[in-house]
């Protein structure tokens, strides 16, 4: 990591839910940093706790442990007014633009709401800012009086992005920003996010399960499995030389670009276990192709690995050495 001060520094985040009195550690000691102007991808399959991390960072879920520092100040310890001011400079874009916009509100009202809520400017200044935002996300001015049901999914997500930009945040968290959209629209929205980042120097934390997207947008990657970070590092290191077997499996699941491309797929047996009863030892061991006795007993800590990243595996980088099963269906 460079000597720059991280914009967002989350340390040992823990979020615990109690469904029916039982303890569910949705996020169990996750640390991540985002530098100014950097794009970090938080990757994992459904249920890995990545969206919960986003909501915990935004202060929606109370933390069972850990700290969030933003711009060098402790958000978790900050009092009401300071906290509101800090939160204002970090904004979250939700996954589903069909649910995140009130169907009864006009676009103009949706975009002005963050400004009104934070008491920014006069009504005229707000109206001007709303028009400016609409231009930034590439929508025509006549969208102002429309309501979300009159807009397409891509247009809606543009509105959601514009709303998040209204308060000029320094950090944008995008939770699966394109997974609810048509494939044909996805690239546009991704490029819009990258554009915003380039022109305004905004830091981006992209939460996704799509490794291909990660490679396209991110500088660094954080891979989560069952509430914990299993691997982190620069995007090229992680994608090209994954150290953790789970990361390797995720990457191998990306469809080959060429027909008949001789890509070896690592097939993980079974489903992710329930976070209500996480496996003993390494949480990945029941599905891991290279698990050994030590993995069943001892939980590996996140330790520096070859290539400058860090991985939580007792046998980092070993997976590539194993003879992999060819997936007959793809051949």
């Amino acid at each position: 990591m460079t000597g720059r001060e991280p914009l967002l520094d989350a340390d040992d985040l823990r979020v615990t839910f109690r469904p029916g009195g039982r303890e569910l550690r949705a996020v169990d000691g996750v640390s991540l940093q985002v530098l100014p102007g950097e794009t970090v991808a938080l990757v994992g399959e459904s249920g890995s706790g990545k969206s919960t991390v986003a909501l915990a960072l935004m202060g929606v879920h109370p933390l069972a442990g850990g700290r969030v520092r933003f711009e060098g100040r402790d958000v978790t310890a900050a009092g009401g007014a300071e906290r509101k001011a800090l939160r204002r400079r970090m904004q979250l874009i939700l996954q589903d633009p069909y649910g995140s916009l009130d169907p009864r509100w006009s676009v103009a009202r949706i975009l002005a709401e963050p400004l009104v809520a934070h008491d920014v400017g006069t009504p005229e200044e707000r109206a001007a800012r709303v028009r400016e935002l609409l231009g930034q996300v590439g929508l025509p001015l006549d969208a102002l009086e429309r309501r979300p049901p009159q807009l397409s999914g891509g247009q809606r997500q543009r509105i959601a992005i514009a709303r998040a930009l209204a308060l000029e945040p320094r950090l944008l968290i995008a939770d699966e920003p394109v997974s609810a959209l048509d494939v044909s629209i996805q690239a546009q929205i991704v490029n819009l996010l990258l554009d915003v980042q380039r022109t305004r120097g905004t830091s981006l934390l992209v939460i996704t399960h799509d490794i291909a997207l990660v490679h396209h947008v991110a500088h660094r990657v954080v891979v989560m499995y069952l509430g914990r970070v299993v691997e982190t590092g620069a995007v090229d290191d992680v994608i090209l030389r994954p150290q953790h077997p789970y990361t390797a499996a995720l990457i191998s699941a990306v469809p080959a670009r060429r027909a008949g491309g001789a890509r070896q797929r690592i097939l993980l047996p079974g489903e992710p276990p329930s976070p209500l009863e996480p496996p003993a030892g390494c949480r990945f061991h029941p599905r891991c192709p290279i698990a050994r006795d030590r993995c069943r007993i001892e939980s590996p800590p996140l330790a520096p690995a070859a290539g400058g990243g860090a991985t939580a595996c007792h046998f980092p980088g070993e997976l590539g050495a194993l003879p992999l099963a060819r997936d007959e269906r793809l051949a």
Partner: protein
Amino acid sequence: MATVTPTAAPAATRLGPLFAGREFLWGALAVLLVLLVAIVGPWLAQDPAATTLDRRLLPPFSDGHWLGTDALGRDLWARIVTGLEWSIAVAVASTAIAALIGTVLALLAAERAGPVRTLVLQTVDAFLSFPGLVVAIAVIATVGHGYLPLVLTLGGLSWPVFARVIYAEASSLMQRDYVLAARLAGSSRTRILAGHVLPGVAPTLLVMLAFHLADMLVAESALSFLGLGAPLGEPSLGNMLAESRQYLYVAPWLMFVPACAIVLVVVSANLLGDGLTERLRGRARRAP
């Protein structure tokens, strides 16, 4: 108080093709007409208390009294419009009170988890487990007659109907992503409730208002029938019905007129409620 059924079958199935798709129109028209009669009628009619003992129990369409007269020779039309005014005034005010209390508590419970929600929901359950009319009789017998006690009692006892339904709807709205997005944007609780949740429950609220109005009118009539509603000398649809019982065989119109008035108002309000349900559901279908 009868239960509210905002999801009642469309009136079209019962009332035939005349009303198909037009419940709202007919209901609104009928309710407006009733309101007009209740408001303007008393100004134009004769003195409802003026007795003419030589013109007692005149049948309808008699000279000067088109609905006839009662046992004391009082003009029935004058009494029915005054009674309608009273009954509607009670029904409207008690519905407003019930809706206000019920909605405010429902929004509060939907927004705040924990003891506040538990308290509201338990109170609703407690209220709903008593037969409303019986409790109303007990309360009014204790606090006394009059417009205000009557309205406060009816409203104060029937709000849980609103609270229950509005709470269910509001708490589902609170789970929507756009409420989360508003929180993330920094909107206050009040702004979220007023901007997202209240407009979201408004269609349901409107429908409930129409049905509740009918319920309150029936409740008022029942209480007046028992002598617990309108004060002595104040005509009301209920106490006119009660007085008519002695003359059922000699002057049945004394019963038919107020009974028909009650039925007319209740059916109008229900028609309006059905129509609203249909309309708002149709709109909800177009704009999910």
